[in-house]
C-alpha cells in the first residue's frame, strides 16, 4: 500500500488532479470538453471560419457540402460551416450574460428571503412562483414581442425568467444554514444584516447554484434558439443557430438538408455539453450525492 502511495505522490500534481476529476466524474470531463471546444470555436471564429458570418455569394446558393463549403451553403449563398462557427459566439453571448443576470437577481433575493423568513419570505416566494408559473416560452415570446427583437432583450428576458430558480435554490440552502452556529456567531459578533448575507451566508450557500449555472445556460441557449426559430428572437441573417434552423427548415422538403441539420447538431451539442457539465459539477461539488449514486 505504501509503495503505491509513494509512486502516486511523485506524479505531477496537475496530472493527478485531472485524473482524479475524471475518475470521480467522467460526466464532468465529457461536458467540459464539449463546452470547452465550442468556447474555443466562438473565440477563434474569425481564424477558423473560411468565410465571414454574413458573407454571401448569390451565385452559389444551396450548394451541397463539398471541399469548399464543408457544410454546404444556404439560400443566401452563405457558408453554413462558417455560420455555425460564428453561431457559437451568439450561443455564449446569450448564455453567459443571461446566467450572470440570473445570479445577480436570483441570489440576493434567495439570500434575503431565506435569512429573514416569515412574511417577507412568503411574499418573495409567491412573487417568484408567479414568474415561474407562466410557461416560460410563452412569457418570453410575449415580452420579446412587446419590447423588440434584439439580443439585449433576449438576454434580459431569459435572465429574468430564470432568476427565481436561483433564488429558490439559494433560499433553501440559506434555510438550512440559518440556524447553524456560525450564523448565530456572526450575529453575536455584531455583523450587520448585509454582511451576514454576503460575507457569511453567500460563500456557503452558493454551491447548489454554481452547479445549476451550466444546466440553466443550456436552457438559455435552447430558449434563445426557440425564440429565433419562431421568429420573435434574433433575426436572420444573424448567424444564430435557431434562426439558421428556421431558414433551413423550408429547404428540408426540397432536399437541401444541410442548411438546417448542421446548426441543429451544433445546438444539440452545446446543450448536451452544458447539461453534462452541470450534472458533473453537481457530482463533484456534492460528494454525498456521488456516493449515493454509485
Amino acid at each position, binding site marked *: 500500500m505504501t509503495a503505491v502511495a509513494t509512486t502516486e505522490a511523485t506524479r505531477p500534481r496537475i496530472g493527478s488532479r485531472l485524473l482524479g476529476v475524471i475518475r470521480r466524474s467522467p460526466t464532468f470531463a465529457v461536458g467540459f470538453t464539449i463546452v470547452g471546444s465550442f468556447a474555443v470555436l466562438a473565440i477563434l471564429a474569425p481564424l477558423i471560419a473560411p468565410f465571414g458570418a454574413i458573407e454571401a455569394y448569390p451565385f452559389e446558393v444551396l450548394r451541397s457540402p463539398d471541399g469548399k463549403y464543408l457544410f454546404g451553403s444556404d439560400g443566401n449563398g452563405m457558408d453554413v460551416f462558417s455560420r455555425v462557427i460564428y453561431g457559437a459566439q451568439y450561443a455564449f453571448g446569450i448564455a453567459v450574460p443571461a446566467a450572470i443576470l440570473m445570479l445577480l437577481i436570483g441570489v440576493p433575493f434567495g439570500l434575503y428571503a431565506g435569512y429573514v423568513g416569515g412574511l417577507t419570505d412568503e411574499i418573495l416566494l409567491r412573487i417568484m412562483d408567479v414568474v415561474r408559473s407562466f410557461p416560460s416560452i410563452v412569457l418570453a415570446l410575449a415580452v420579446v414581442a412587446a419590447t423588440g427583437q434584439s439580443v439585449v432583450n433576449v438576454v434580459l428576458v431569459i435572465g429574468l425568467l430564470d432568476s427565481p430558480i436561483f433564488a429558490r435554490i439559494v433560499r433553501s440552502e440559506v434555510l438550512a444554514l440559518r440556524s447553524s452556529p456560525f450564523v448565530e*456567531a456572526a450575529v453575536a459578533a455584531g455583523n450587520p444584516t448585509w454582511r451576514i448575507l454576503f460575507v457569511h451566508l453567500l460563500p456557503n450557500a452558493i454551491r447548489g447554484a454554481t452547479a445549476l449555472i451550466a444546466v440553466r445556460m443550456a436552457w438559455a441557449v435552447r430558449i434563445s434558439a426557440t425564440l429565433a426559430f419562431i421568429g420573435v428572437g434574433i433575426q436572420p441573417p444573424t448567424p444564430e443557430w435557431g434562426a439558421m434552423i428556421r431558414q433551413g427548415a423550408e429547404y428540408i422538403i426540397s432536399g437541401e438538408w444541410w442548411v438546417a441539420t448542421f446548426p441543429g447538431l451544433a445546438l444539440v451539442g452545446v446543450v448536451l455539453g452544458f447539461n453534462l457539465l452541470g450534472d458533473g459539477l453537481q457530482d463533484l461539488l456534492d460528494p454525498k450525492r456521488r456516493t449515493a449514486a454509485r
Partner: protein
Amino acid sequence: MSSSAPLVTVEGLVKHFPGPRAGQVIHAVNGVSFAMTAGETVGLVGESGSGKSTIGRAVVKLITPTSGKIVFDGQDVSKTSPQAARPLRDRMQIVFQDPYGALNPRMTVGNLIGELLKLHTELDREARAVRVREIADQVRLSAELLTRFPHELSGGQLQRVCIARAIATRPKLIVLDEPTSSLDLSVRAGILELLRDLQRDTGVAMLFISHDLDTVRLVSHRILVLYLGMVVEEGPSAKVFEHPVHPYTQSLLSAHLPPDPDERLARHVLSGEVPSAVRLPSGCPFAPRCPIAMPVCSQARPAMEMPATGHQVACVRVKDGSYRLPDSARRNVGDSVSHARG
C-alpha cells in the same frame, strides 16, 4: 451581591418558543432572576430542557425574551432586538459548544478574529493585523495558524479561535455555552486554564453554562441550578456542591460520576426523565419526580428560601429543614462493582 453595581441584572426572565404543533408553547425559561458583577463567573447547571442555553442567548441578545427585564452595563436591554444590539456587542460576547460549527468555514482564522476588530474598531488593516497577532498570542494560538481555514485546525485550536473572537474587543461579559463539552478531556483542561487566565488578566465576567458538574464547580464562583426553566438552587459554588439542599440538586449531584473509583457516592437515583416543557407541572417543577414531594408542592411554586447554609433554595421543605432525601433512596453502586472486582 458585592458593593459595586452589578454588570448584568436579570429579573423574571421568561422565554416561550412555538411548540412542535400549532398552538403549543414550549416554556423554555419561566421566571429566572439573577445578577452578575464584573469579574465574576456564574455557572448555570441543568439537564436538557432546563433552559440554560436560552438564558445565555437572551443575556447576549441573540433572542428577545417574552417578558422580564435584562439590564446590561447600566442599560435596559430587555426589548433590544438582536440587530439593534449591535452597538453593545463589543461589550458582550458568546462562545458556543461546537467550535467546528461556530466558525465560517470559508474564512481564514486571521479574518475570523479580525472580523470583530473590523466591526467594532476604527483600526486600519495593518493595525488590525498587529492586534490579531496579539490576541492569537493571548489565547496561545500560534501565528502560523492565522492563514489557515477552520477545517485545518483541531477542535481545541478551533475553540481557541472562538475565544479569541470573544475577547478581541475586550468585552465585559462572555457567555460560555458548554465551551468544553465537545472537546477531548486533555484539551478541555487547556481551555479551562486559558479562561481562568483571561479572567484574571482582564476581569471579564463569565456566564458558564454546562451540564458537566465537575467543570462548573471548578470554574464558577457562584452557581444556579436550573430545572425546567426555573432556578431551584443558587449559591456559592462550594456551598451548593458540598451542601446541596434542593432535592433535585441532591439527586443530580449523586447521579454524577466523579472520575475516581475510590469516591463512594450516596445514590439517590431518580425515576423517570425531565418532563416536557410544553405542559409545565403546576407548582414546583420537580414535584412529579421528587421522592419527598408533599401535596402542597404541586399547588404553588415554592418561593426562594434561605436554609442555614446561607444560599437560596426554592423548596418548601427548607423551612422545617426536612429536605434531606431519605436513606431508603440511597444506594451504593460502587459496592457491587468493587465486590466483583475483588
